């Protein structure tokens, strides 16, 4: 391994002001081999973060703007008839890239969302008679805008579950916004240079996989997920699936790797648990009507489980 994941984080932070949560989530997703769902208003550097990540990895970046008239073939690709050759040839869609930004994923109808989510899950796409393997690493970052609900197609729970992480992207602080003004108003943004290779990413993933997760922490993770099914039942319709248990374990190992440790601490589990649980817990209407907030309920759920 020539570089460490921390180098990648530093490279992204040189381009993106603030949004440490987003940067860390992207790297965690990359190391844990999962996909990231970003929810936040427009203009919060979501696209910039994805572009910067692809550039820092020297990988290929594609952006798909989801619209109501998008077709599955616009994402995965299609077969076209070549009149000169008198045969069908395959044109691969934008999903064939290392880092794919699915912008406003909830603006496309369910069959288009399904096409992308299937590709995310299977890491391969079948076009006609041929199956094409997606490049490795393959990271999808989907965004959702919480403000304009009109004309959107909400992602079903089963599809939300496919995302390893969901990040709520919030507005920057005043200081961060001042920094944005100074950095971006003066000149063209500094392009991100590659600080790691795609091979490095594969090596990091192997290293993350080998990180020690103590039995006490495995039990802690199980208890955390069980708490989402058993506690705060007045605000929760359904709890997280076992996929959340696996997600927390993968993410905690990735977090330990970023912090340059070869063992996981309870702090790692606690830090990544909201990322893995936020979109997997079914909060009911009382969270809104009683103005409690799903984040607060989730925090209470997590805090209710004793730390080992």
């Amino acid at each position: 391994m020539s570089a460490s994941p921390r180098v990648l984080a530093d490279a992204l932070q040189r381009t993106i002001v603030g949004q440490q949560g987003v940067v860390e989530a992207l790297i965690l997703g990359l190391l844990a081999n999962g996909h990231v769902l970003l929810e936040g208003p427009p203009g919060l550097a979501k696209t910039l973060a994805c572009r910067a990540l692809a550039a820092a990895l020297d990988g290929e970046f594609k952006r798909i703007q989801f619209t109501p008239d998008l077709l599955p073939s616009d994402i995965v690709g299609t077969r076209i008839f070549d009149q000169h050759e008198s045969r069908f040839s395959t044109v691969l869609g934008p999903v064939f890239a290392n880092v794919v930004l699915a912008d406003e994923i909830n603006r496309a109808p369910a069959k288009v969302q399904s096409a992308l989510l299937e590709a995310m899950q299977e890491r391969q796409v079948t076009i006609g008679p041929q199956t094409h393997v997606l490049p490795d690493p393959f990271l999808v970052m989907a965004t959702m805008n919480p403000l304009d609900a009109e004309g959107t197609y909400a992602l079903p729970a089963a599809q939300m579950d496919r995302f390893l992480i969901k990040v709520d992207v919030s507005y920057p602080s005043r200081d961060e916004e001042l920094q944005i003004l100074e950095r971006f108003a003066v000149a063209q943004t500094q392009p991100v240079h590659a600080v790691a290779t795609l091979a490095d990413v594969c090596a990091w993933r192997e290293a993350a996989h080998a990180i020690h997760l103590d039995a006490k922490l495995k039990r802690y993770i199980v208890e955390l997920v069980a708490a989402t099914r058993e506690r705060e039942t007045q605000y929760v319709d359904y709890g997280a699936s076992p996929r959340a248990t696996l997600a927390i374990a993968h993410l905690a190992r990735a977090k330990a790797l970023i912090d340059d440790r070869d063992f996981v601490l309870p702090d790692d589990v606690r830090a990544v648990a909201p990322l893995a649980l936020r979109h997997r817990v079914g909060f009911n209407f009382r969270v809104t009507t009683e103005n409690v907030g799903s984040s607060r309920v989730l925090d209470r759920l997590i805090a209710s489980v004793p730390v080992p």
Partner: protein
Amino acid sequence: MPASAQDLQRLTVTRLTLSANTVAPKVEGPFDLVVTAHVRERVMGLRNLDLPILASELDVLGDEHSLVSDANGTTYTEDIRVVAHHSGLITIAPVTLDAIDARDGRAKRYSSNSLALVVGGGVLAATQTFDLTGVLFAALRWLLILAVAVLLVRLLAKRPRKPPPAVVPAPQPAPVPMVRPAATREERLRDARTVLEAERTRQNVLRIRTIVREMVGASDAETLADVLRRLEPEERLMRALLFALERAAFTHDDDLDHAIDRVILRLNDLAGSPA
């Protein structure tokens, strides 16, 4: 012979008294000594209750005891029927009960009050004839008893008033080895280091981690990061110890020995190196 620690019952003793069913027993007139004990626990018996060795002036005629358990605990009552053959003052030693106090886990000897009885004159025999000498002797004896009684009353009046003679924990006897909690933080950390040096196991690391977390007031819901956020910056050594303990608690087996070395080092920093 005092009971060993293993034999002692774990009890919350709320009452232990010794009384008599009469204030003026008569010579050759049977009367009852009553031992009453109450404990909060529901028990089948009181194993280490020692009754007084009665003075030679009293003969035991019979003994009856009962045990009643209810929601409030168990009440033990023992009636000892005795008879006095001579008049005069009789002092009966306290009843004792050895038990582990359920409130603090320490072995204690509970004592009842002692009892002082003045036995009065007996029944005259039917065949006894009247004679002056006998009357004088009887009058003299009564005067003597009266004088002793007055003396006793005056002596008792001079003594400082005591609280009701219920449960009086006696001074701590030595038979039960109790682990004395270390008084200071340094002492506790030194104890922890001794334990860890003697037995370098993860189990001991976890025990010490629990103790140290208690020292810094960490709750069950707090992770290391939460605790470190609360600690003052000058608690640098404690921060280092907490992190060393966290590593030793969760690292892989290959690293455990190094991690324990680090914990011992940090304990030395905080508690002082061993002499």
